[in-house]
């Protein structure tokens, strides 16, 4: 405690007028497997503890150890937590990428680097902070084998000193990270202090970036989207989880296993109120979901694009046999060894229409960790109400990165299990017809296997069945079934979550986005207003099928920019299927597909290029007269 206070007390104060406070991006370039993830999380959490809105993005390779990896931390008093591609402070630890990393910086950026790397030969317009990492790590870590891991803690101390990160918060963040491993925490914190002391003694402040305590994170939490979705599934009352490991979805089920073992064991019998099975492949994972959903369980799986492709046949069966199930798609780039650790919204079109024959499926688009939680719950209700597979379309950026958020709301409404008849219902009704549209909403009543009633049993199969579930190939019977499924889709339009609309759009420009693109768009809206005085409207699509509000938004605007993280404008493609021709003509695309999370600058520039045929010069954030509104606590 004493140490911390002394250290903080000695912080120097650069001239206040020159400082850029609580608005910066830090990039750490390291080698995968070198323990840098822990260092980066400590920095991120320390800034979070200082009450400054912050986001962290791990840009990592498909590799366990040895390949280059980057971590960006953005602190923003304006509350922007999307990616910012411009880097203010680089921590260059990787000899292999240092030239590329340094050359990518804007003039005037600062670089903290291992003194063995001759950074100055690449640029002379940066602010240089060489650090003798090897010399510093020796005294704090006598065990040579651990030095490689502890070494990265030194930059935490250096950065903390340079940017005025509170060492008390650093220590708390570090101890949280190491949990009960006190000795490891002590060792690592000694390395942090060594870095801090070196910077304090030998590193005069040259840059203008500065962090100061705020109080914007009161009550907030930090969590990955996958963990949030796992929590949502647990509170949705999931009972059967079947999965096959695939990046970036694996941590969803792995976290779920931890939570379920802790909170879903029957207190009296010590037995599980759930079954979680690692399947042999995605075919089996979805087959088990279909079997379990048919037998009445709340069943789910989590996967990524390649898994979705493998599940295509079963999803068609689920659609026609009308079996509920929830599939989390944590989207990533491309097939095979494409870019499995890079983010994308590339499965939208293929998932919406997955399988053969006429099939279409409800999709939910969470944009935040909070929505990962709430939409997980919603997905299970929708799947059982609509008796069909429902997809939650996350992406790697949301699923695997840590995001700050308000705490999640406890579900207010009871679980909705859809139209299920039990033995008493059957006594009263005398029987039932599985696929008859009794209520006019296209949804039939089902019984669950095991229901003790002579009229309860039925035979489930694909599309060739009549209202009593009896096999038929008669044209009229098939058409009748298809038309009922179309009516059910109309019910899905009613039940799927509608968009979140932020009006204004007085200049006739609308932006339509979904999922994690949201975080770029909220910043783009401000940039358009600040830089070009353009007031754009915003429609954040939260579900498919689209409802009238989406159509009306497009109708109200002259041009609507559909922002998405894929090459082929996939959501725009889906909109085209629904819209009248004159509305289709209003749609424009803003596309981002380089594998990294979308950022506001690129989005704004793309819109401006299309609007006025040229890119307006970007205002330096935080220093011009048109600074965005600071978030008020």
């Amino acid at each position, binding site marked *: 405690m004493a140490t911390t206070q002394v250290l903080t007390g000695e912080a120097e104060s650069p001239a206040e007028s020159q400082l850029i406070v609580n608005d910066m991006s830090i990039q750490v370039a390291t080698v995968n497997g070198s323990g840098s993830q822990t260092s980066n999380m400590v920095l991120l959490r320390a800034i979070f503890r200082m009450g400054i809105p912050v986001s962290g993005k791990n840009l990592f390779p498909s590799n366990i150890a040895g390949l280059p990896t980057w971590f960006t931390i953005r602190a923003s008093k304006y509350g922007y937590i999307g990616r910012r591609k411009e880097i203010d402070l680089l921590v260059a630890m990787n000899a292999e990428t240092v030239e590329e990393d340094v050359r990518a910086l804007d003039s005037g950026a600062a670089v903290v680097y291992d003194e063995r790397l001759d950074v100055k030969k690449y640029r002379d317009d940066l602010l240089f902070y060489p650090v003798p990492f090897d010399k510093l790590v020796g005294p704090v870590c006598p065990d040579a084998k651990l030095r490689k891991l502890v070494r990265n803690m030194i930059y935490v101390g250096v950065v903390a000193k340079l940017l005025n990160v509170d060492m008390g918060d650093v220590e708390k963040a570090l101890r949280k990270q190491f949990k009960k491993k006190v000795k490891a925490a002590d060792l690592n914190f000694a390395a942090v202090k060594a870095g801090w002391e070196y910077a304090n003694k030998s590193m005069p402040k040259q840059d203008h970036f500065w962090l100061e305590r705020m109080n914007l994170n009161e009550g907030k*939490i*930090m969590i990955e989207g996958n963990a949030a979705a796992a*929590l949502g599934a*647990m*509170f*949705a*009352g*999931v*009972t*059967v989880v*079947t999965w096959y490991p695939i990046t970036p979805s694996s941590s969803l089920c792995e976290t779920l296993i931890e*939570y379920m073992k802790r*909170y*879903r064991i*029957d207190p009296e*019998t010590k*037995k*599980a*109120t759930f*079954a979680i*099975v690692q*399947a*042999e492949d995605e*075919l*089996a*994972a*979805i*087959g*088990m979901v*279909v*079997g*379990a*959903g*048919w*037998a*009445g*369980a*709340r*069943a789910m799986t989590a996967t990524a694009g390649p898994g979705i492709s493998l599940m295509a*046949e*079963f999803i068609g*069966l689920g659609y026609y*046999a009308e079996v509920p199930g929830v599939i989390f798609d944590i989207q990533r780039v491309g097939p095979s060894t494409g870019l499995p650790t890079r983010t994308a919204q590339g499965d939208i079109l293929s998932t919406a229409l997955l399988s053969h024959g006429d099939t279409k499926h409800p999709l939910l688009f969470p944009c935040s960790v909070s929505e990962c939680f709430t939409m997980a719950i919603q997905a299970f209700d929708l799947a059982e109400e609509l008796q069909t597979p429902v997809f939650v379309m996350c992406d790697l950026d949301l699923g695997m990165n840590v995001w700050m958020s308000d705490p*999640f709301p*406890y*579900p207010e409404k*009871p*679980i909705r299990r859809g139209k299920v008849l039990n033995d008493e219902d059957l006594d009263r009704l005398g029987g039932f017809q599985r696929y008859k549209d009794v209520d006019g909403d296209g949804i039939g009543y089902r019984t*669950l*296997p*095991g229901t*003790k009633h*002579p009229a*309860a*049993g*039925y*035979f*489930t*199969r*694909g599309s060739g069945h009549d209202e009593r579930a009896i096999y038929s190939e008669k044209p009229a019977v098939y058409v009748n079934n298809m038309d009922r499924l179309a009516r059910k889709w109309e019910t899905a339009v009613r039940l799927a979550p509608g968009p979140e609309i932020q009006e204004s759009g007085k200049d006739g420009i609308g932006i339509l986005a979904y999922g994690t693109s949201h975080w770029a768009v909220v910043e783009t809206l401000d940039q358009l207003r600040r830089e070009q005085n353009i007031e754009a409207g915003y429609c954040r699509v939260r579900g498919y099928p689209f409802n009238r509000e989406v159509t009306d938004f497009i109708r109200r605007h002259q041009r609507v920019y559909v922002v998405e993280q894929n090459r082929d404008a996939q959501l725009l493609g889906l909109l085209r299927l629904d819209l009248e021709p004159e509305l289709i003509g209003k749609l424009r695309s803003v596309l981002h597909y380089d594998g990294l999370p979308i950022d506001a600058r690129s989005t704004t520039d793309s819109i401006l290029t299309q609007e006025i045929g040229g890119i307006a010069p970007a205002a330096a954030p935080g220093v011009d007269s048109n600074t965005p509104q600071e978030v008020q606590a």
Partner: protein
Amino acid sequence: MATTTVPPAPPRKVNRIGLEQADYKGNKTTLCAGCGHNAISERIIEAFYEMGVEPHRVAKLSGIGCSSKSPAYFLRTSYGFNAVHGRMPSVATGTVLANHKLIAVGVSGDGDSASIGIGQFVHLMRRNLPIIYIIEDNGVYGLTKGQFSATADLGSKLKTGVINDLPAIDTCALAILLGATYVARSFSGDKRQLLALIEGAVAHHGTAMLDVISPCVTFNDHEGSTKSYSYVKDHESPIEDVSFVPFFDDITVDYDPGTTTEITMHDGSRLLLKKLNSDYNPTNKSEALRVLGEAHDKEEVVTGLFYVDTKRESFIDQLNLVDEPLATLPESRVRPPKSVLDEVMESLR
């Protein structure tokens, strides 16, 4: 005055839960007349009737093919799911996870299990999922009109004259190796043996895998076929004479005790194996595999119960599930209270 005496109606024959055998029938078959699969359906009907199984507790599952149509032809009032090709094992697994009180009957074919579905077959056996898994094995794809399957024997000939030059997959040997705990082979025409084996399978808790040679009368019942009626009749070599005594049946058994092995099933039923081959022990894995290997060498079709293990935990036992079906647990047991969410939120600050 003449009186007419009406002969008393014959007493209605019912099983221990008061159902007639007709209550276990299915819809009229649409398979070819004489198809071995129909005979298997008949034995399933008899077995479930005799065992007094409640039809509402039965989930019939299948993949795609002639075999997979047959669940519609037995146990009409049970629940059925005709899934996709080769994937019945996963659907069955999900069904049993959702409700482990169900008695799952999976009906598959040699194409469905040994070719497209071999991956799922392998993993179901490995898990020892409680299921009666029947392969209706004719060595040929019937529904697509007569292509070889992976259980067709080396050297067997299609109607078109095409010779199979790849070795057959022995699903029984595979099942034993992988961990299934009740593995047998029979012949659709062997009423007594097949009935006893199915009854034993109903009483078993774990994966009961029955490979039933079932000649295809349309595409594979000719001279060159090793899965034809005549071939199997000539080459069949039973390893034991099987009889099944349900636990509720108090009948005397006419087996000679000196040559009989008695296996007590999970529900207390007894499976009696009269030795034809005096050194055969169905609880010994390597012995079972040796017998199967030897039969291949001699080009014989060995039938009977090759392997049984009543001790190994089933997949459901391993998962330590609550006693009630997961599918119908009330909200109070599957949605943790608000205090849990508060606790988790606090840990994330």
